[in-house]
């Protein structure tokens, strides 16, 4: 029955659904997991690489995590080729903003522009939607550290911890349980800790939680740096600092939190 209404993006089904958009999201749920966790002092992004082979030259280029700007780093889940187009577009948008206003683009602004682009492909033009979801981690002076999730429909929302890709619901429920939220009543009035108000997580907590979630959602017996991409965004000298981890650095992190990671059932 759905078959009749799913061949074009620009029509609704009788139940009011856009099947192409939903199918795009289905594609993403088979892609490598990306996790993002917000802490008081920064954001951790970790991703599972799906293309692994001895022959792959993995030290050059990334598959999952990309810098969009000096103050925004994003993890992608879905069709990598589609993602590359959107990454490039966001980079141009960010640079254009910098050229016009001599100021780094506010994180939400960049996410919104990206999402408006994605939404366009669900409403006109007759082209299929982008099969990509993003987790954008960034910092700006107004709101501090922010983590945004966006989907092929062009929806975006801000999260303290989020997950996209394979096993995301599993990961999301672990995050919900383990994330140390700030449950004090005046979390909203915290003006000195702009944006990071509302969380008691430190970077260390975030890294540890990331490893826990990764170990539970990724299907391999042992996590190695070969299968992972890792990045953090923090502040250095009051300026945003993005660090994309090398494989040695990933190994160090995995070793440090080895004790909290349970190997999958033997």
């Amino acid at each position: 029955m759905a078959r009749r209404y799913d061949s074009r993006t620009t029509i609704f089904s009788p139940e009011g659904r856009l099947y192409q958009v939903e199918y795009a999201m289905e594609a993403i749920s088979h892609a490598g997991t990306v996790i993002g966790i917000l802490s008081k002092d920064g954001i951790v992004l970790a991703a599972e690489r799906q293309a692994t082979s001895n022959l792959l030259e993995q030290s050059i280029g990334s598959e999952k995590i990309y810098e969009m700007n000096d103050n925004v780093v994003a993890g992608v889940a879905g069709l990598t080729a589609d993602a590359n187009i959107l990454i490039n577009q966001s980079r141009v948008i960010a640079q254009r903003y910098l050229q016009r206003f001599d100021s780094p683009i506010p994180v939400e602004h960049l996410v919104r522009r990206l999402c408006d682009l994605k939404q366009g492909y669900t409403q006109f033009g007759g082209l299929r939607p982008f099969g990509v979801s993003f987790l954008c981690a960034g910092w700006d002076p107004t709101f501090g550290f922010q983590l945004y999730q966006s989907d092929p429909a062009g929806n975006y929302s801000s999260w303290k911890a989020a997950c996209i890709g394979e096993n995301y619901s599993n990961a999301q429920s672990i995050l919900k349980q383990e994330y140390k939220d700030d449950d004090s009543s005046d979390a909203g009035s915290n003006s000195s800790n702009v944006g990071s108000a509302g969380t008691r997580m430190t970077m260390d907590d975030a890294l540890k939680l990331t490893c826990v979630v990764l170990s539970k959602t990724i299907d391999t017996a042992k996590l190695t740096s070969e299968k992972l991409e890792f990045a953090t965004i923090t502040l250095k000298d009051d300026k945003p600092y993005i660090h994309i981890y090398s494989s040695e650095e990933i190994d160090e992190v995995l070793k440090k939190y080895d004790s909290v990671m349970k190997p999958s059932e033997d």
Partner: protein
Amino acid sequence: MDSITLKVPHTTERPAEITNYGPTTHISQPSVTGTSVVAFKYKDGIIMATDCLASYGSMARFRNETRMISVGNNTLVGMSGDTGDFQHMKHTLENLLTHEYDMDDGQNMGTRSIYKYISNIMYGRRSKIDPLWNSYVVAGVENGESFLGFVDYYGTTYQSPTIATGFGAYLAQPILRKYVEGHEDELTEEEAVRILDDCMRVLYYRDGRSFNKLRRAKVTAEGVEISEPYPLDTNWTIANYVVGYGS
């Protein structure tokens, strides 16, 4: 190939509306103009002054003009040059701020961003040989730091603790260099006003397109304040000694 056509890079092609036989759509001279802007940094921020005159050539035509505007919460822009082009810039800046207001995202346009925005417009227009015939002085306080910048109709930009446009560049700037440069951070508001009034007085004496009714404005961390118009005390006794005066 039937004919050989010269392929011109797209940047030098003019739009179809502007051709060799249509009207000239770029100005070669300004019409209603404002004279100098004088501005400098002091302890609390930046102080700026402009007179209230918009001249029509040598005629003192509009004597209650304001050649400074506040943009957003904490930026002050002063202009010298063509009034019509200034009004165009005013509208453009207003549109920018309206757009920001519409976005409603909690972000504010800082002084540096407004300065960059204006600079891009000015340079873009000069590159089309259709300039906005103005010099702008952009002042603001962002994150506790004072910002003072200049843009002209060539798109030339620079920042300095003291800035003066038009005649002010010749007559006021040397005064500012002597009394302000080096100790901007120690000047109190009274001292700054005194220096500013002295500059404007010299300009009134010697600039043939100036007027003894001026406004001053200050930008501090609290925002922009533009004063009411006021005249300066002047002393023309020396005129008696000028050969031919009064006779």
